[in-house]
């Protein structure tokens, strides 16, 4: 059995795709705008990274309301990527994040390859960007509106153009959709195309009916399901991909509410986690998760998040033996 350590003995620093971060907790794209609104609740510089809401080339009004429906332990959203466009983002949002000391991971989204390329160029050459996350869960206008993420070939093409245009020293993460038949195939395709790592998962497509109108609740009809309701699905995705490609850095996303939830993602193979929908319920959740993760690790005798990444894939007896041999362990 492991012996617990003092939480202060835990060093939460992690290295993800060559980037050193003070801790493995980020805010997820679309759940934190561009970070500024959360500054009222905690210092965004305290996060491992801030993943921005996906930015597109042009300003975008998004979908009609209602845009959300509360569902058990989660919600459906149909925002439609409302945003100011890349010009305003680079003029206002990104400089604010950089000046506040945050580590921005910029999420980009396009409806055609050319848009991804333009975004990659402009974001990749902006100062202060820690990494790029590529939202490929968007309809491809040149492929019958089929979502890029659902087709390994199209997904790989997006990652290839983004990788080509983002400077080498900036990692590029592909954000994967769980709504596919074989996630590992998509994961392998985007890694082969040059991705530095994977962010998983995006929302699951869902729908809710209004008992009064007897019609779909959402103005956009379907929406993305997020929140603790999807956590087991997200963990399964991380588990499967880590098993197939243990060397690939994974950002685990899906219903993280507590430090214990974050620990689950690390055990499944994620190198870092993103806190998303739970921010709507508790705007200070991201920093709470950092504190809780520290104590979850300390209680179990771990002194670094790296010690538990993928640990659940090793048999129980071996796991504790490996841990006992860990030179960083404080007793």
């Amino acid at each position, binding site marked *: 059995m492991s012996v617990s350590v003092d939480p202060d003995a835990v060093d939460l620093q992690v290295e993800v795709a060559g980037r050193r971060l003070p801790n493995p907790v980020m805010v997820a794209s*679309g*759940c*934190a*705008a561009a970070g*500024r*609104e*959360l*500054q*009222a*609740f905690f210092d965004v510089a305290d996060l491992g990274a801030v993943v921005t*809401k996906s930015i597109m080339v*042009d*300003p*975008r*009004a*998004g*979908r*009609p*309301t*209602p*845009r*959300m429906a*509360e569902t*058990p*332990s*989660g*919600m459906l*959203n149909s*925002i*439609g990527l*409302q*945003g100011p*466009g890349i010009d305003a983002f680079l003029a*206002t*949002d990104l*400089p*604010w994040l950089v*000046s*506040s000391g945050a580590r921005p991971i910029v999420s980009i989204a396009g409806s055609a390859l050319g848009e991804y390329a333009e975004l990659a160029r402009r974001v990749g050459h902006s100062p202060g960007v820690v990494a790029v996350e590529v939202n490929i869960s968007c*309809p491809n206008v040149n492929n019958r*509106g089929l979502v890029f993420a659902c087709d390994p070939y199209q997904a790989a093409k997006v990652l290839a153009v983004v990788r080509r245009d983002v400077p080498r020293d900036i990692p590029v993460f592909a954000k994967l959709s769980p709504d596919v038949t074989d996630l590992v195939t998509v994961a392998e395709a985007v890694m082969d195309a040059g991705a530095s790592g994977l962010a998983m998962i995006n929302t699951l497509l869902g729908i809710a009916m209004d008992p009064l109108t007897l019609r779909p609740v959402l*103005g*956009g009809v379907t929406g993305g399901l997020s*929140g*603790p309701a999807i956590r087991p699905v997200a963990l399964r995705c991380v588990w499967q991909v880590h098993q197939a490609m243990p060397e690939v850095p994974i950002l685990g996303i899906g219903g993280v509410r507590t430090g214990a939830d974050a620990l689950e993602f690390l055990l499944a193979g994620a190198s870092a986690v993103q806190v998303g*929908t*739970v*921010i*709507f*319920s*508790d*705007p*200070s959740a991201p920093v709470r998760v950092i504190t809780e993760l520290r104590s979850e690790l300390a209680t179990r005798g771990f002194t670094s998040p790296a010690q538990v990444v993928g640990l659940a894939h090793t048999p129980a007896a071996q796991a504790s033996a490996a841990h006992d041999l860990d030179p960083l362990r404080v007793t």
Partner: protein
Amino acid sequence: MTGSGPLVLSAAPLQQRAEVLTVKRIGAYHHLTLVAPGVAERFRPGHFAALAVGGPDTALLLRRAFSIYRVKSSGVYGGTVEVVFAVTGPGTAWLAARAPHERVDVVAPLGRPFALPKEPVPCVLVGGGYGSAPLFSLAERLRERGCGVHIVLGAGCEQRLFGTREAKRSAGSVLVTTEDGSVGTRGRVTDVLPELVTGTGAGVVYACGPMGMLAAVAEIAESAGAWSQCAVEEAMACGIGVCMTCVLPVVGEDGRTRMVRSCVEGPVFRGDRVRWSALGSVPADALGAPRWGGP
């Protein structure tokens, strides 16, 4: 805070696990008082509070947003915030079932408050149902500025009116309408409003209530040459500006329509700026509207 962007938080909100002081039933509504030090000092009429519901392990993730009815800065309980709400689902039912000393996580004050006139002009305040809640602290601020205050309260029936007695204390005149005629004039607030706005020579009409009422009030104010300040109620997930669900089409200073967040850019808007007839849609001329139909 630094930065030069368009976002201006009118006051830094506080998040706290607030102790329940009282939950009282008033007609068809519930009146909740929470101990929340610091809110009163930041509060201006029109601000709202976002309450988490269901406790720490709840399956109900989204906050419930309510206009702030009243705040007290100190006294025995060290600062309180009060909201009035109707039970419309499991979240509000949970709130209504709270007992004193239990805790409710509250974020407040949020949003942009009512704009106050610089001159001591007569003002008409219109509340639909429990939408009247934020109007009483507004009336107080207006009176302090020397503005004459006239209040109109309307609801489906007497049970659904809120604050008729308080209105009589805080306003020079009070009109009440009910759709079933159980008290006051039978009909809607908009039936009595045009005459009141003209008769008082109102410079500003303030309103809080259902969207349909706000649209009608804005139009009446406009045709009488008065400004209107409408506190909208859009469904919100977060209340703090990060989720982008509570948007509505609003015309900016530059004449452009944008889909703006009612939580941070509202909930109070100039009535003549809101595209009332386009609520629930994205107008084709809005900034960033889909160019080819779209999904």
